[in-house]
């Protein structure tokens, strides 16, 4: 079976599309997470392939579905947190051969194919639909939701796995080179000018502070709240390995990476995998967990006019994304019980939620909002999952949290100041991402 990248036609990326044709007809019914680790230790049982199999089996079991009833698989083939397997380093064949390999020895170690998953999960005997999504779980969710709605699969697994190898990424290769091609020098130009990965967001944040009279210190309550929520997420990296709260003092005294972005404004790369099981609203009634219905998915495809997106471009794009999210779901900002928009970089979470007009927020309001009660116990929860800040770089805590909150199984993280009925999650970038609206009821 050949697996294709999802066509652009599966995404809802423009305004004016009306209510999503499958609104309330697709549901998530199973969640599975692997354990987390900071880096791969080279053992087969901790490889991204092994973690992915673990997450998939948990999701199937969680849904109470017989594996042979699974007929679809949507996954992200790229698993890197930043580093690819170094060309001069031998692939550890003992780890590769601990599984049923494909033609590519990096499969299961430094990437994932649908073929590798199927070969290594013999219980999946009836998968007839496979598709790739780019980047992160947010895209895979959108593709799987559309696929189930379109009837391409009835019980569809959705998977994202991450590998994190030794060493710091971006320090080799073109960064160590004496010369760069002209096109690269101009755009992205990161090595000519020395801009770290967070620079574009830091520049937007700097302009945000200039424009609205805010400052970096005002991020502290958001960071503290995010780590606190993350520590209440037993599946997360910080909860499992470093159960430390992040105080405002810790945050504000951290070293700069690209001022106004410091170390904590950047998320921590980890090894982890998560899987979900999506099905039709009809079938969901017979499964083990309370269904979480999908009311809409929406995508952002913003482009910058010049070398880097300006704050003004970001604000226009996130506002458009907000309108798309609500339009297809047939809801308004007032219907949102809580939000789980992306945060990896911490400094663009406010762009996402201002674009949503969450709790009536307008551009420039979010940092003041962060100074109020944004806890899971209050009426205005912010990033209930804790996001990447609270759980490590997975880009999927926010989705899992939306499901668990609505299902009433978020444990110590359960929202008490609002009744969790409708939520939105997604990302990554304010200028480009994929977003999903989750609901306790199909209508």
């Amino acid at each position: 079976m050949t697996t294709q990248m999802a066509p652009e036609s599966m995404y809802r990326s423009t305004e004016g599309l009306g209510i999503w044709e499958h609104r309330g007809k697709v549901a998530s019914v199973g969640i599975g997470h692997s354990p987390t680790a900071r880096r791969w230790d080279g053992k087969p049982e901790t490889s991204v392939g092994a973690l992915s199999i673990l997450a998939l089996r948990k999701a199937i079991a969680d849904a109470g579905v017989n594996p042979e009833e699974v007929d679809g698989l949507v996954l992200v083939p790229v698993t890197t947190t930043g580093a690819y397997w170094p060309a001069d380093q031998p692939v550890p064949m003992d780890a590769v051969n601990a599984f049923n390999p494909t033609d590519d020895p990096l499969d299961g170690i430094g990437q994932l194919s649908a073929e590798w998953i199927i070969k290594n999960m013999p219980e999946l005997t009836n998968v007839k639909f496979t598709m790739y999504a780019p980047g992160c779980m947010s895209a895979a969710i959108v593709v799987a939701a559309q696929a189930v709605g379109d009837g391409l699969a009835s019980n569809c697994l959705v998977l994202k796995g991450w590998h994190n190898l030794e060493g710091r990424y971006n320090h080799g290769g073109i960064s160590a080179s004496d010369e760069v091609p002209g096109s690269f020098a101009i755009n992205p130009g990161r090595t000519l000018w020395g801009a770290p990965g967070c620079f574009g967001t830091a520049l937007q944040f700097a302009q945000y502070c200039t424009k609205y009279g805010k400052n970096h210190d005002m991020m502290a309550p958001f960071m503290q709240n995010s780590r606190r929520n993350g520590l209440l997420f037993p599946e997360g990296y910080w909860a499992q390995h470093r159960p430390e709260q992040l105080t405002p003092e810790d945050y504000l005294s951290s070293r700069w990476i690209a001022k106004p972005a410091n170390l904590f404004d950047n998320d921590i790369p980890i090894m982890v995998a998560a899987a979900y099981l999506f099905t039709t609203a009809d079938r969901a009634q017979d499964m083990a967990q309370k269904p979480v219905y999908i009311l809409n998915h929406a995508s952002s495809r913003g482009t910058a006019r010049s070398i880097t997106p300006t704050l003004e471009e970001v604000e226009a794009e996130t506002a458009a994304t907000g309108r798309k999210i609500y339009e297809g779901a047939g809801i308004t900002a007032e219907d949102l019980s809580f939000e789980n928009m992306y945060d990896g970089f911490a400094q663009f979470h406010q762009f996402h939620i201002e674009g949503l007009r969450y709790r009536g927020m307008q551009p420039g309001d979010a940092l003041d909002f962060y100074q109020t009660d944004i806890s899971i116990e209050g009426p205005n929860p912010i990033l209930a999952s804790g996001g990447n800040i609270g759980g490590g770089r997975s880009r999927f805590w926010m989705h899992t949290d939306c499901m668990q909150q609505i299902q009433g199984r978020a444990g110590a993280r359960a929202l008490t100041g609002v009744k969790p009925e409708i939520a939105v999650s997604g990302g990554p970038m304010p200028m480009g991402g994929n977003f999903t609206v989750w609901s306790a009821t199909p209508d």
Partner: protein
Amino acid sequence: MVKQGVVPDDLNRPFFEAANDGRLVVQICTACDRLHFPPRVACDRCGSSDFLEWKQMSGKGKIYNYGVVYDCPVATLKEDLPFNLAAIMLDEDPGILMYSHLPGTPADEVPVGAAVQVIFEATANGQKVPEWQVIG
């Protein structure tokens, strides 16, 4: 600061050749009078690829905003940390941005919104690139 050497390619050769001559040029679509930076293979407004030319700029701009880089993976720049990294808006069209290390401006003492003037700085292989200095 010594920036990595730049090897121009077809899409941007006029930009870099002009920089070696001490001139700032930006690609323009003359069909719809639209400036592009980075240069494009087709106009991002009218879609045409038949009217792409290069237009000389005044070399004047303003600082959009900036960050201060403290942690940088690029070998040739590491000894100069921390350094300014600003985005410059061209006076001809503030939607066109260029990066600058703002030579002569101490780290984190950047006057946002201030006027700047282009200069040309040699990179490691001698190819010049535009840089920007605060005026006055």
